[in-house]
């Protein structure tokens, strides 16, 4: 089993070792990535990392946002996008862009079996925000790889 590419398997292994839903140090690391992402952007107002089956793992969200509902909705949106992109033979989902009159929402995969959702204010810089979010998604993947290496070692 390739733990670095299968984050749900990784989390199961962490659970088996620590007996908690997700190890606090891993969660703290993930939350730090999200916090840095939001703090480093003028456009971002929040970020959420969830498993592909709709459980929130880390979040930096404006008050009043229910992370459980957004985690479920993000996983549904991304899964439906994946299916549509695949059936239209357009490769794999790069990102999902939702444009609202008061701000945008972008979704993308972070490693396998995780998704990253970010929320923006009105009229964000699309290219810049997506690039920053993609970098954060890659950092999430590398954190997962490090965690996997630690568990293996």
């Amino acid at each position, binding site marked *: 089993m390739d733990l670095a590419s299968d984050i749900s398997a990784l989390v199961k292994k962490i659970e088996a070792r620590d007996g908690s839903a997700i190890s606090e140090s891993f969660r703290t690391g993930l939350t730090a990535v999200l916090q840095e992402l939001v703090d480093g952007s003028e456009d971002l107002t929040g970020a959420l990392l969830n498993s*592909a089956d709709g459980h929130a793992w880390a979040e930096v969200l404006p008050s009043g946002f229910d992370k459980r509902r957004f985690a479920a*909705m993000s996983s549904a949106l991304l899964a439906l996008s994946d299916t549509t992109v695949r059936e239209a033979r357009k490769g794999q989902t790069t990102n999902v862009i939702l444009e609202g009159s008061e701000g945008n929402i972008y979704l993308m995969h972070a490693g396998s079996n995780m998704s990253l959702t970010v929320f923006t204010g009105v009229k964000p810089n699309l290219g810049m925000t997506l690039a920053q979010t993609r970098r954060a998604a890659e950092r999430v993947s590398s954190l997962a790889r490090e965690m996997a290496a630690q568990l293996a070692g």
Partner: protein
Amino acid sequence: MQSLGNKLIFAGPVGVGKTTAISALSEIPPVCTDVAATDETLARKATTTVAMDYGFMTLEDGSQIHLYGTPGQDRFDFMWEILTRGGLGLVLLVDATSSDPAADLERYLDAFGDFIRSAGAVIGITRSDLANQDVYSAIQQRLRQRDQPLPVFEIDARRPEEVRLLIEALLAVLATGE
């Protein structure tokens, strides 16, 4: 019958066989949104539906039926509301091997209550062959207590002819109710 075809919705707990039933009936390869499960769902199966399933079938009289499957977990209840819009009826599946099938039944009857009142519903019990209790009677009794006399069938969700029976019963309910 609407020319655009009729929309039916499959609901019920995780792992009851909603995706399987739609796959069994559909004339087209079903649209599925399965992802890897990370929670207690894993005890039952490796993947789970998180958005919807979609399939399509044509009845003998030529009428077209669109089949929509819902995710089972409560956290996806926003999809239940989205998918039932414009629907004509509900196929509610209950797993006979669950610890309390009648309680499962009630949970989904309540969650889809508004839709059932405006549409119709039929109950399908799956995995009866593996159950060590009389689930059929328990379900019937619970429906009587609730004064909701819905048709109940024991089915194998993998068998097209058995799932088709559910659809035909539901359409019969809809025809007499109108």
